[in-house]
C-alpha cells in the first residue's frame, strides 16, 4: 500500500540525468522505505523540485563521512622493487564515482510522501559543495546549518549560513576533529582532579 507513485523511479531518473540508483524495502505492515542514490549531486535541486510537486515533506537531512575500508593501505614488502611495479590500489568509489576515502561526505535527504520514506543520497568529495534545498524546502534551513557547523562541506546559496547550535568561537567542522574531552567540558573539573593527582604523587615520591 505504498504512497509513493508507481513510477517514482522513472520520475527520479528523468529529473537526474546523471543517473540514479534506486532500491526499496517494505515492512510487514506495508510501510515503504526507498533509497535513491544520485550519481551527480548537482541533480539534487531538480530531484527536489520533482519531490515538491509530489507533495513530499523534507523530514530530516543526515550527513556522514563513510570510513575508508580497512586494509586499503599498501603494505611495505620485502620485495620492494617488485611491489613498486604493481599499480596503486584505488580507494573504492560510490555509485556516482566519489572516492570513499574517509574524507568524502554522504548527505542523506530523508523525504516523506504520506508515511513512506524516500531518501535521496548525494555524495560530495572532500572540499566539494552541494546546492542548498532551502529555495524549495523551508525545512532544509536548520538541518543544512547544522551540517555546515559539524562538517566542512559547503552548502551553496544557503540564505543564513550561520551557526545553529555551536558557538562561533568553536572551531569549524567539529565532527571531523578529535576534541579532547577536557577541552570539550572546559576542563573545569579535570584540572582540579589533575592537581589532586599530582599533589598526591608528589607526596608519595
Amino acid at each position, binding site marked *: 500500500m505504498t504512497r509513493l507513485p508507481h513510477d517514482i523511479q522513472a520520475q527520479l531518473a528523468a529529473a537526474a540525468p546523471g543517473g540514479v540508483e534506486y532500491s526499496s*524495502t517494505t515492512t*510487514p505492515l506495508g510501510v515503504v522505505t526507498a*533509497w535513491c542514490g544520485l550519481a551527480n549531486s548537482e541533480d539534487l535541486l531538480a530531484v527536489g523540485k520533482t519531490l515538491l510537486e509530489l507533495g513530499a515533506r523534507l523530514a530530516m537531512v*543526515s550527513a*556522514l563521512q563513510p570510513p575508508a575500508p580497512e586494509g586499503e593501505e599498501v603494505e611495505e614488502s620485502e620485495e620492494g622493487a617488485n611491489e613498486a611495479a604493481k599499480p596503486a590500489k584505488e580507494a573504492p568509489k560510490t555509485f556516482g564515482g566519489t572516492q570513499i576515502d574517509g574524507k568524502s561526505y554522504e548527505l542523506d535527504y530523508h523525504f516523506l510522501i*504520506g508515511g513512506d520514506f524516500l*531518501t535521496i543520497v548525494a555524495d560530495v568529495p572532500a572540499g566539494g559543495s552541494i546546492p542548498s534545498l532551502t529555495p524549495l524546502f523551508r525545512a532544509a534551513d*536548520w538541518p543544512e546549518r547544522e551540517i555546515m557547523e559539524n562538517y566542512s562541506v559547503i552548502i551553496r546559496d544557503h540564505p543564513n549560513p550561520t551557526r545553529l547550535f*555551536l558557538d562561533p568561537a568553536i572551531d569549524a567542522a567539529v565532527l571531523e576533529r578529535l576534541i579532547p574531552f577536557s577541552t570539550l567540558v572546559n576542563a573545569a573539573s579535570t584540572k582540579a582532579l589533575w592537581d589532586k593527582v599530582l599533589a598526591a604523587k608528589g607526596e608519595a615520591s
Partner: protein
Amino acid sequence: MTAIESSKTYTIPVGPLHVALEEPMYFHIDVEGETVREVDIRAGHVHRGVEYLTTKRSIYQNVVLTERICALCSNSHPETFVMACEEIAGLQIPERAAYLRVIAAEIKRIASHLFNVGILAHLTGYDTLFMYAMQVREIMQDVKETLFGNRMDIGAMCIGGVRYDLDEETAAYLSAALDKLVPEVEGLADTYRRNHTILRRSRGIGVLTKQQAIACATVGPVARACGLPYDVRVDAPYAAYDRLKVDVPTLVEGDVWSRAMIRVAEIGASIQLLRDCLANLPGGPTHLPDRPDIPAGRAMGKCEAPRGELVYFLKTNGADEPERVKWRVPSFPNWDALRFMMRGAKIADIAIIVNSIDPCVSCTER
C-alpha cells in the same frame, strides 16, 4: 522634549534563561510597542553532542543512551532506535511485545500531554488549574512507577521486544488507574473548553495557518491543530497500531487553544488505546530469545512521539558501534513555526505561544 516615534521597532531578548521557559532558548524579538514584528531563534544552550556519542557506544548501549536524550518523550527515542535496528537485522518482534510497546508509548503520551496543558494553565496565571492538572498527571506517574519502576525513564524497550511485562495484578492496576483518570480528564477538558481565563488567553492567539504548517513541515499536535491529520501511528503503522483503532483528532483554527485541545483529545484517545490493548493483549514471549547481532545496513525508523513524528536514521557496518545515528525530533521543525505564530502577537503572549508547541530543547539540540 523629543516626541517618541510610535512606529519605531525595538529589540527585546527573551531567554535563554527566562522564568516562563522550561528550558533555555534565546528569542531575539523585534517589537513595535507591545506587538511582535519579527523573531529570531538562537539555539545551542543545551547542546551535548549525544549524536556523536552514539557512534562511540555499542548498539546495545545506545538503547540506554537514547532514552536519556529527553525526559518527557524518553520512551520514544529507544523505541524508534530499536525499530531501526530490527529493520536492519530483519527481526520480527513477538506479538505480545508489539502490544506492550503501544502500552508504554501511550502511557508516556498521556503524562506528557497533561504536563503541557498544565503548564498552559500556569502561564495564563490560573495556577489552581495548573496544580490540578499536575495532580491528575500523578495518576500516570504512579502508573509508570508501578509498571516500570521509574517515573520518567521507563527502560521498556530492547532490540527484539520489550523489557517489561504485565501480569494480572499490574494489568488490573493500570485498568483501575484509567478508570480514575477518565472523569478527571473529562473535567479538565470541560474547563479548557469553557473557562473564560483560558479562552481569553488562548483563542485566536499564536495562529498558524495550514499553508504555513505545511511550509514549516510541522508535525504532531501543532500540525493537527491546523487541519493536517498526519499521525505516524495511522499513516505508517508500527508495533500493534495496525490492529488498533487510533483516533486522530484535528482542528482547523491553528491557535494556542486548538493545540491544547488536540492534546486533551489525544489523552482520551490514548486511554481508549490502552483499554483496547489490555482487552486484546496476546500471550507469548515479550522479546526474542537471543540478543541478535546487528549486521551492516541502513534503515529509517519513525514513531509518533507525544510531540509528533520522531525520525531515526541508522547506518551500521557490522561493528559493535553504529557508523551513524541521526534523529530528528518533532520539536525541530516546530520551532520554525513560532516565527509565524508570534508575528503580530502581544509581548505578554510570547511564553504561552512558545509553550503551545510543547517544545523540547534537550531533544532539539541533543
